């Protein structure tokens, strides 16, 4: 069965430092991969997605992610973190076709930003 693992439940970085959030997936075919962000008390917002093509994907708010098939990973990166990036981040893999497509979410990583 398809699954998504985010190994880090909680990460703390200093403002201005670089960030990498890890995501590993289990999926037999070429995956559809997503990163969402959830600010406190809010719904989820799409940061970026990978369907095919260039393995380095650019998203909103200065985020990027790289798809590495050999490592079954889709890690999220940002070169310089801002205090407003403090939130919970979810990686998801899409599966299915026709009317039965679904997203499988990882457990989430909470990012804390130190001043």
């Amino acid at each position, binding site marked *: 069965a398809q699954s*998504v693992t*985010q190994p880090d*439940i909680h990460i703390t970085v200093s403002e201005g430092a670089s960030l990498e959030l890890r995501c590993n997936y289990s999926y037999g075919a070429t995956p*559809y991969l*997503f990163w*969402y962000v959830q600010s406190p*008390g*809010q*719904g*989820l*917002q*799409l940061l970026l*997605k990978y*369907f095919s093509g260039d393995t380095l994907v650019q998203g909103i708010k200065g985020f990027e992610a790289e798809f590495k098939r050999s490592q079954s990973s889709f890690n999220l990166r940002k070169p310089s973190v801002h205090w407003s990036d403090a939130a919970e981040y*979810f990686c998801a*893999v*899409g*599966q*299915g*076709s*026709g*009317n*039965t*497509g*679904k*997203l499988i*979410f*990882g*457990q*989430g990583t909470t990012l804390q930003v130190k001043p």
Partner: protein
Amino acid sequence: DAGITQSPRHKVTETGTPVTLRCHQTENHRYMYWYRQDPGHGLRLIHYSYGVKDTDKGEVSDGYSVSRSKTEDFLLTLESATSSQTSVYFCAISERAVPRDTQYFGPGTRLTVL
């Protein structure tokens, strides 16, 4: 932002009572989804709909039912609420089926079952 509203936004209820959560969209999207969010589990799909009166189960559908009589509304019902259904519930919509299309999420409903 996609036009998705959820009501109520907060609800406290007692074990054994019925509860209905409403998701309303103004985007005329065909697909609608209900998820629950619990610490350590991320989001898990409860039910989804691929058209008016067309619904199907997700991975955690036990104890939940849904209805969709209009394109814009997707109702989630807990027939007899239990404490294990205390959670934050999110509605999502997409124009076409995932995974090819993007899901847009509502603001969530926090449900507490005492």
